[in-house]
Structure formats: C-alpha cells, structure tokens
C-alpha cells in the first residue's frame, strides 16, 4: 500500500481551478480594481452565455461528438424569438420560440449524427451554415429590437443580489451536473464516449442517447440566445460568430477530452471562467488590442502546460 498523497491528488484534480485562482490573484495584483465584487459580478454575467453553451457542449463532447452549430443556433433562435416578441408582444412566447428553435436544431443534429451515422463535425458545420443562412434570410441582415421588461430583467436584473443570467446559468450547471452524474442518461453519455461499441453490445440504445445529447446542446444554445438578446435588448443576425470555438475551448480547458468518456461539467465552468477572466483582465489592464491575441494564446498555453505538469507529478508511471 502506498501512502495517500492528498496534496498531489488535489492538485491533479483541481489543477485548472488553482490556475484560475492564480490568474485572479495576478490580475488583482496588477490592477486592484479587478478585485471587486462588482467586477466579479460583471465577469459572471459575461461568462453566462459561453457558460450555458459550454455546458451543452460538454455533454456532446463527452460522447465523443462535437457541435459546431451552437453559434448559428444562438443567432437563429435569438432572431426568431425577437421576431415573435415583436409580432405577439408576449415575452414568454418569445422565450418558448427561442428554446424551440434551439431544440429543433439539436434534433436535426442528433438525427443526422446518431441515426444517419454521419460525422458530427460535418453535420454541425452544415447546420451552422443553414442556421446562419436562415437567420440572414429572416432578418435580411438587420438586427431586431427586443423591447420587453421581462427580457430586461433576464439580461440585467438581480435576484437576491445575484444577476439573473448568473442565476440561470448556475441552475443550468446544477441540472446538467445532476443529469451527468446521477441519471441513467448521464451514465450512458460517459459510457458511449468511452466505448460506443461495448455499449451497443450491452444492449444500450446508443442512438437515442446520442440524439438526446445534441438536443440538450441545442436547447442550451436556445437558452443562451435568450440571455444574449436580453443583455443587448436586441437580436443580432451575426450573433454567436465564433462562439463554438470558445465553448469547445472551455470544455477542453476544463479537462474533458475531445475523444470523449472523460471529464465533466464542473471543469467546463472553470474553463469558461478562465476564458472570461482573461478577456476581462486584458480589458482592465488596457492591453493594446494588437497584443491581446498574443497574451491570450500565451496564457492558454501556459494554463494547459501547468495543468499537465500537475498531472505528471501525480502520475504513478
């Protein structure tokens, strides 16, 4: 029996969390204004959108898939919802429309990936193009105003001192965490990512599980679109451009492997915060935009390297 090595195991398990804390410490040191309640609330509000997307993306990636369509999904769901709001004046209908569009795109992705057995990368690249296209056709390239007190509350309101979008995303993480860890479906998500064939031969309905995973991801993209248009009080046809990469980056920074089967939504939240804190910090430090990409690349590389180093010292072999 080996002596337990609690310190190393904790470092290994929570490596990225420590790196996040180190970033926060360093930024606080460089700019004292960084370390304030209001700035933390700001960061949380900003992380909400990528956070919600990344939660769904985590599920997809855990099965070994990928969803590139989330950005297009955010745009289409947001614009349809804003359109519904303008024509009905009812914000609840608008929200249902947004979630419905997200769900639909998720179902299309899920159908082609799991039942038609097409590669997820290409399927979701195609639905990304489709979603962007339909958004442009629908809006003719123009933003749509979102004029509703309910949306104002969703985007900018507070509940018990916590910004509403933050609350929403916290609930999302609790639910997704629960689903992944405590339900049959969640268990299968991990198992399919680990070995799809073995699952199939254990009698698991692999197709339905994979389908559902894309539906979740689409639904959460619809939810993100609500938060986004509530923040801006307008729906942008170009919304969500490049969001897929940010979401995937958060998932992978959070320790979920692109090949599936390993990781979790807790890590993803840390990953999303690393990205959000970095962007906020660079703005606060007023780093020249020309140098921001350099800083971003360097910090991400340093973070994964450090995390890897924690793992290696913890590894037995």
């Amino acid at each position, binding site marked *: 029996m080996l002596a337990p090595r609690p310190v190393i195991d904790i470092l290994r398990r929570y490596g990225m969390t420590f790196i996040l804390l180190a970033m926060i410490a360093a930024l606080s040191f460089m700019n004292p204004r960084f370390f304030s309640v209001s700035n933390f609330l700001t960061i949380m509000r900003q992380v909400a959108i990528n956070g919600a997307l990344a939660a769904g993306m985590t599920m997809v990636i855990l099965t070994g898939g990928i969803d590139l369509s989330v950005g297009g999904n955010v745009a289409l769901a947001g614009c349809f919802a804003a359109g519904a709001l303008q024509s009905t004046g009812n914000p609840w209908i608008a929200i249902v429309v947004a979630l419905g569009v997200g769900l639909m795109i998720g179902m299309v992705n899920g159908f082609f990936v799991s039942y038609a057995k097409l590669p997820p990368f290409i399927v979701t690249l195609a639905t990304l193009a489709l979603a962007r296209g339909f958004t442009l056709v629908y809006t003719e390239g123009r933003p749509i105003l979102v004029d509703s007190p309910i949306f104002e509350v969703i985007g900018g309101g507070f509940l018990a001192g916590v910004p509403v979008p933050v609350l929403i995303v916290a609930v999302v993480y609790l639910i997704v965490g629960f689903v992944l860890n405590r339900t049959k479906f969640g*268990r*299968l998500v991990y*198992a399919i990512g680990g070995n799809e064939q*073995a699952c199939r*031969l*254990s009698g698991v309905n692999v197709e339905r599980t994979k389908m559902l995973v894309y539906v979740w991801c689409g639904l959460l993209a619809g939810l993100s679109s609500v938060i986004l248009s509530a923040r801006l009080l307008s729906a942008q046809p170009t919304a969500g451009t490049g969001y897929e990469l940010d979401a995937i980056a958060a998932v992978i920074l959070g320790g979920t492997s692109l090949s599936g*089967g390993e990781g979790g939504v807790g890590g993803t939240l840390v990953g999303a915060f690393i990205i959000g804190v970095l962007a906020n910090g660079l703005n606060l430090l007023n780093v020249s935009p020309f140098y921001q990409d350099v800083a971003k690349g360097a910090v991400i590389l340093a973070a994964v390297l450090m995390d890897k180093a924690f793992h290696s010292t913890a590894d037995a*072999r």
Partner: protein
Amino acid sequence: MGDKEVDPILSMEGICKSFPGVKALDGVDFSLWPKEVHALVGENGAGKSTLIKILAGVYKMDSGKILVEGRPVDISSPRQAQEHGISVVHQEFTLVPQMTVAENIMLSNMPSIPGLRSLVDKKTMVYESEKILNGLGVDIDVFAPVRLLTMAEQQIVEIAKALSGKTRILVMDEPTAALSNVEVERLFDVIRTLVSKGIAVIYISHKLEEVFRISHRITVLRDGRVVSSSPISEVTRNEVVKQMVGRELTTMYDRCKADIGGPAMEVKGLLLDPAGEPISFTVHEGEILGIAGLMGAGQIQLARALFGIGRTYGGEVLLRGRPASLSSPSKAVRSGVGLVTENRKEEGLVQLLSVSKNITITVLDAISRRGVLSSWMEDRIVTEKIEELDIRTPSPKQPVMNLSGGNQQKVVLAKWLAVDPDVMIMCEPTRGIDVGAKAEIYRLIGGMAKNGKAVLLISSEIPEVVGMSDRVLVLHSGRVVGELMGDECTQEAVLRLATGGSVVGA
C-alpha cells in the same frame, strides 16, 4: 534446456511496483536462461503482466534492477526493450485495426527499399510477413485489414509481430488464450525451433496443461511475490495449483444437472450466409448447450447473429415459443438474451469507466427510478458481483483498464450475471481466467442453468465445452455437423466432427 551453469540472459532483481491502492510486485526476482522456456504462472492479478510490462518498458519500476547478459540496463520505453532484443506479445492486442496484416506484423520493423531508407518496401514486407505466418502454419491473407480477422487470427498476427524482429528474449503473455488446439500445436513447434536457435522465452498462461508441455522452468507468482521457481520436472501440476491459489482443486466441471424444461430458444433455418446452409437447433430452459468448432467454423458469427449483430439471410428465432425480433442488441437484451463477447477490450468493457459502472451498465433500468440512479441499489449489486466472482480490485471505483486481464474478464461476466437473461450466450467466458476462478465461474454458469436459464456455451477449449454442456452442437465451416449427448460426448468425438469427420456409429 535451461542450464544453470550458463549465466542467465536476463535477471530481474528485487522488482517492486505499486499502483495507487495495490502493490502489484513486491521484490520479485526472476532469471531467464538462454534456450529455455520459462513459464510464469499465478492467479489473476498476481502481477505477471505487470512484471513483463516492466521488462517491456511500458511501466517504470519503483525499485529493483534488470540485467541483460549480466549488464544492468535501463528500459524506460518499448523501443529500448526492443533494442535489447526483447519482443513481447501483450495480453491485450496491440494491433492497428485499419491496417493490413502485413503492415501490422512489420510495424516496428518496416523493411525499406535498399538505398532509400525512408521508403517502405512493400514487396519485402509482404514476403517477410507471409514467411512468418507460414512458419506458424496458418493461412491468413496478409492484405486483409486486421479489423476483419477473428480473434484467433488476430492473436496469431500478434504473435507473428513479435517474431518479426531480431529477438533474443521472447515474452508471451497468454498467447493461446484465443487459440484452439491446432494453432497451439503450431505455436509450440515455432517456440521449440526458436529455443533451439538460442532464444529464451517467457511464457505466461493459465492453461497449465500447455505450461507443463512446453516449459523447462516454472515460476509461480502470488500477490506480487515469487512463491517458487524450479525446473518443471521437479513439480507436479497439483503442487503448482496449490501454490497459485493456496488450496487444492479437485473437480472443475462439478455441477448437478438441472431439470431441463421447455424450449427457451428455437433457431429455425437461420442463414448466416446467402450461400450457406440453414442452421436449426433448440436450447431448453435449464440446459447448457455447447457449441464447438474449429477456428472460423462460424460459432461466433452464429452467436452474434442471435444477438442482433451482423446480417442474416433468412430463418427465424423463437423465444419461449414466440417469434422474436433480434434485430439489434438492445432488442435482444429486452427479449431476454445476453451475449458475453469474446473480445473484452473492444466489445466488452468501457475501459475508462470504473468496475462498478461497467457491471451495472446492463441493469441501469433496474437500479434507477424515473431515470435517476440509486447509488444504494448500485452498490448492492456491485458488491455482490465482486464477491461472487472474486474480482480483485482495490475498489469498485477503479477504472476497469487498471485491472488485470483475468479480472477484466470477470467484470464482463459480472455485468451479464447481473442481468441474468433467459438465454445467455457466452463466447469464451473463461478466457484469461485462472484455474482457481474457473471452477467458480463454472459453478455460476451451472447455477444459471439450475435457475431455469438456457446457456449457449461457445469455447475453443473443448474440455470446457464437453465438461460443462448437457449437449454439444458441432459446427464445421458454417454447418451443423453433429449433435452429441451424454456418453457419446467426448473430446475425441467433438474433435473428430469439428475437423470434418463423422459421428462414430451414426
């Protein structure tokens, strides 16, 4: 013959290796002399594979040293092991499924075009790999992608691969687990030839009968320690078993036959091949029906077809007299059919997941309420199965990939025993399982039958099929060539039918 006067070609001294929660090797000394076949035996989880993985540069030892020809060496990667002339057939296959047989065999020694070091010489590659395969007496298409081969064929490719380089020390970790008698004989011929050329062999197997035939020296490991190491002539099989498992084993296939009930599964005119012959048979409640045949005779294909994998071209299957649609594994499971696959790594287990999650993957509905899992119910099943099958793991939370090969196999069995299906199809259920645990597994299979379940037992170990089954169906190139029952069911009779002979007196 191992000759103590000569210096050992390999000495491993005081090897220790720990994994979190397990001390896999605890001061193991092991020496290997030129021209000897040195058997390494021990229970599942005794540390055999770990020892040879250290030798192969896969794991780093915690302490101890390795001497090759008396000189201390540092083996920290498989490549370094190869440079010392150490070739290994690992217990789990290390093949690239998409590549051809020839490319796999020559993977680490790709021949190049003379003068153009970086260009592959495909002709030589094909020639060399065919030569090795011919030496093993098998006829496998070297242009076929490995993923299309049967397990037995893959096992042979794996062995051929180890023979492709300039080897001084050949290590084989259960090379015959997936082989039937004919191929084992060929392999032994090859081993004898190699030994006569001065190569030393480490041979790991749970098939003691083989061990006693091929080896010169035997070392028994138990809980990571060497229990004994002696020339084979100085020990008996019973002594070895006793050293391994700490008790004597009397009977293997001891089971009180169950009452045979009505038909559980009736297969009528099943066509596995559009040009083949229809297969029909019935297995009853409480019956163990053995299915025997040589490599490639189609047993596995039949088993898979009954579980909804692979295409069939006609025929029907009745379960308890009612027509059943077994078009996919999930439908099969829902209709009460289970399948223990022969390939535990690719098809049996989710390597990243824990022992407990692998065991319960087949019974998630039973341990959840409205989709929410009950950890209490899960723990109960898992604890029960781990005890029942004596799965050696530091904790149920251990990822299955960290278990020894035999213990992984037990997990595969556990997940199907947890379902307890009406018709249990088992392909090579005891592959890689030690002699002690085998008896226990046979008892469990017998228990299933006793509870009125039907079992289809498919195995390349004819004694196992003959010993366990109430009735044996023999297949030969995709056809049912005979059915043996009671006294007429002997190893010789099965073998004769399987090789194309006919039933005596029939």
